[in-house]
């Protein structure tokens, strides 16, 4: 074998969106506010994925204003409607849809007033980017003016919405059930180089194709994929929390090795859209699914490169070297036997 060996591997995956094997729900309130701005209140938790921006985009689209005109209230159990946890790849799906529904209700209140004011059918009204028009007429005004008119007519354009995902529990004997109403699928290809002298594996390229239903913010989705892939890479090659008789031996980042900028492959994200038919937005999710296929794709690539299968994560240099030695001994024994 040459010192540096390259190979490629693929792995596929699937994942369910929102809480598992139970009904999931989320609620939101929306108000079209002075100046053509909006307040949205919901129990959302921004854990870094960019959900606040996604919700602002959704609210802006639904209300006909701009994302920067949307204020999202802080998550506070005494002030905001329940939208439950940041997990289970559920926030875009559950909270995104509940915000859309709340905004639709607020907008319909506003549109009813403007339609009466203009004496047109509410169905002809369209709003986008802060401008409101009646289709097929020359009638136009800003959303700021529209809110002002609604208020002068005595109406505050508020709305509430909630969204439900109908998962069912599993049968305790055979596990049958419909745990989710929306599924996503993904496939990743990894290209690696293995240094057969040191056992070190580098991932040079990674192609990640994921169905997300409908893309709300492409960069945000890519960011989730890149972050997920690198966490998957960490678990594949280096991360290892260890204990001895219950005492950790990896109590800091000197001992617990994490991927750094130097470990990162070039990542090509391919966003596939198979819209969810059961929700107003069609979007599904990406947070967790992004990392499911990474480690097996890397292990399959290592096999393609050097002919050994690492079945116990992580594939540390020591394990890779041991596996190479074992394979060489096996090959030698086979040759001797032949």
């Amino acid at each position, binding site marked *: 074998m040459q010192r540096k060996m390259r190979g490629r591997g693929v792995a596929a995956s699937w994942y369910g969106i929102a809480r598992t094997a139970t009904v999931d729900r989320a609620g939101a309130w929306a108000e079209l506010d002075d100046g053509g701005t909006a307040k949205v209140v919901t129990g959302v938790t921004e854990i870094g994925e960019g959900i606040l921006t996604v919700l602002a985009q959704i609210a802006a689209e639904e209300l006909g204003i701009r994302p920067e005109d949307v204020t999202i209230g802080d998550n506070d159990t005494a002030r905001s409607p329940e939208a439950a946890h940041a997990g289970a790849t559920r926030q875009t799906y559950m909270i995104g849809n509940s915000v859309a529904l709340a905004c639709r209700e607020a907008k319909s209140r506003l549109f009813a007033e403007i339609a009466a004011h203009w004496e047109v059918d509410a169905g002809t009204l369209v709003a986008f980017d802060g401008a409101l028009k009646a289709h097929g007429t020359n009638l136009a005004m800003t959303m700021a003016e529209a809110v002002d008119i609604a208020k002068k007519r005595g109406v505050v354009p508020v709305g509430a919405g909630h969204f439900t995902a109908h998962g069912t529990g599993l049968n305790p004997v055979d596990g049958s059930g419909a745990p989710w109403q929306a599924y996503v699928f993904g496939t990743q290809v990894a290209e690696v180089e293995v240094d057969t002298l040191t056992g070190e594996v580098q991932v040079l390229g990674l192609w990640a194709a994921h*169905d997300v239903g409908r893309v709300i913010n492409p960069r945000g989705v890519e960011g989730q994929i890149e972050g997920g892939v690198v966490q998957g890479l960490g678990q594949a090659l280096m991360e290892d929390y260890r204990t001895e008789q219950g005492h950790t031996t990896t109590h800091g980042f000197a001992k617990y090795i994490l991927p750094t900028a130097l470990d*990162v492959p070039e990542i090509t994200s391919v966003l*596939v859209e198979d819209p969810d038919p059961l929700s107003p937005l069609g979007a599904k999710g990406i947070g967790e699914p992004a990392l499911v296929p990474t480690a097996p794709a890397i292990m399959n690539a290592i096999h393609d490169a050097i002919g050994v299968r690492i079945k116990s994560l992580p594939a540390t240099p020591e394990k890779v070297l041991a596996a190479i030695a074992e394979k060489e001994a096996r090959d030698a024994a086979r040759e001797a036997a032949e």
Partner: protein
Amino acid sequence: MPDMKLELQVNGRKVTRRADPGQRLLDFLRDELNLTGTKEGCGAGECGTCSVFVDGKLVKSCLMPAAKAQGADIQTVEGLARPGDLDVIQKAFHKTGASQCGYCIPGMVMAATSILREAPEASLDEIKERMGGNICRCTGYSKIIEAVALARDVVTGRASPAALDPETVGDSFIGHNVRRLDAPSKVTGRLKYAGDMVMPDMLHMAVLRSPHAHAEILSIDTSEAEAMDGVACVITADDVPGKDGFGVFVHDQPIMARGKVRHVGEAVAAVAAEDVATARRALKKIKVEYRELPGLYDPEDALQPGAPVIHDYAPDNVVKHIPIRKGDIEAGFAAADLILEDEFTTQQVEHAYLEPEAGLAYVDADDVVTVISPSQNITHHRHMLSEIIARPINKVRFIMSPVGGGFGGKEDMIYQGMLALAAMKTYRPVRLVFTREESIIASAKRHPSRVKYRMGLTKEGRITAIKFDMLSDGGAYGMSSEGVMRKAAILSCGPYEVENLQVDTTAVYTNNTPSGAFRTFGGMQAQFATESMIDIAAERLGLDPFEIRRRNMMRAGSLTHTQQKLDSASIGRVLAAAEAASRWEPGAPRMRGPERGDLGGPGTRAPCTLGARFEASKDGKERVA
């Protein structure tokens, strides 16, 4: 220690303060000057979140005594741009979407600033090398590196400053790269995480943790600690007024150890004092008598008859077992041309969010017990705390603070209860900030797993049967184990239609650090095994790995492993997309690497030789770098 007078320049202004000479520069900046954009991610020089310029040189302020900064010129992230403004690097981070949770970002911005000051023409490799000391757990670094390169190009005139402007919107905000609304506050260090927040009259908490993996608590004597100057209260399990117990599924974990400890690092008592140093000193005065018990450290041992029992309610040590059955596996294996058997294991994994756990609690004017923390599930925490402190649910309030990374690790209510109890006991605000070491020993990890796999296939590569048996170490408490086992079982056999299967997933109690929720919730452990098996099958049958997957994949109308009928399944589309994007050269996975023609093309980087993790091989002759 007597105070010393410290005179230095900070962000262009002269600062004179009396300071404790043992204080770290990091604490001086954060606690004395309220410059909380400088973060503490590790306190040990290993993450870069605390980076500042000292006389123009980038240093990790957690490693530098404040006294050493006497007379120095310090620049922090707050000093890069005028208040309310962003500099070029910050604008580039905003543009590319480089900040996610944001906790590493001030440090990243400082490292990027240092690169462009010292090596304005730095290549991508050099940028990566120089950013190598800064850890980010969220972004996978890609958009951060893109941001630094963009800023470099604008600074050197290779790109127009207009490259930093937002993208123009077409006819919809959906599908559009709207820049993150929270980015400006993250790239400037302005956003306050829980550990950055202060309240008037605030107390500081420190937690006494178990040194034993499994031990009975014979007695706890807190009297000496309570009598100390500056100590406001000491709390133990005895202070819990209601029904003690929390957990994402089973509520088996007390706020603080009750009667016995079940893992190293479990909270036993907590002190609230005027400052952190006093609180930590007081911990040493708490006397706990333990009687060590035999422990369990391997999940297989936990299932042996006569094994020590960790929780009385579960004499068999099983947290949860999930069975799934479909078809007839005997018949399925009988119909197979090839039967493969193998075993796969995965390790425990630390979430390593850059923001260690932190929170504040207070009792407000309406007697509402209020907790501010970066929890991933304040809805559920409110329910649990209301029972634990025996107050009506509207007298318990949780407020979410910005979350500096979670990945599932901040779903467990491992410290909010202690904060609430101390606030109720003192009627003063109380703050707790974990050290990195505390975070690592006290918080949940990804479940390690051992999967015994049996797969039958026809010559054509159709799966006829799967037997899948996963055992996981749940550690000392239930946390999310039940849900993780359920999700692992449901997803186990992958995106394939399998007519005959028998799946079992089991999590057991041991005295190891608890396992809990972690991004994919069991999904990756299970599918690592399945995707490895499929590759082995493709190798044995001489099939291309995409092709074997297509032959088995779910389609519209397929029945999942739990016999749910799918209306649609996009697996065929994502397989085709990955195959095309990677320019995949078809062939069976039989160590084709040496002959492949699709290697090293677009979408790959050159192998890295800079700062390789291995400097030299054992004999010292060969150097990788």
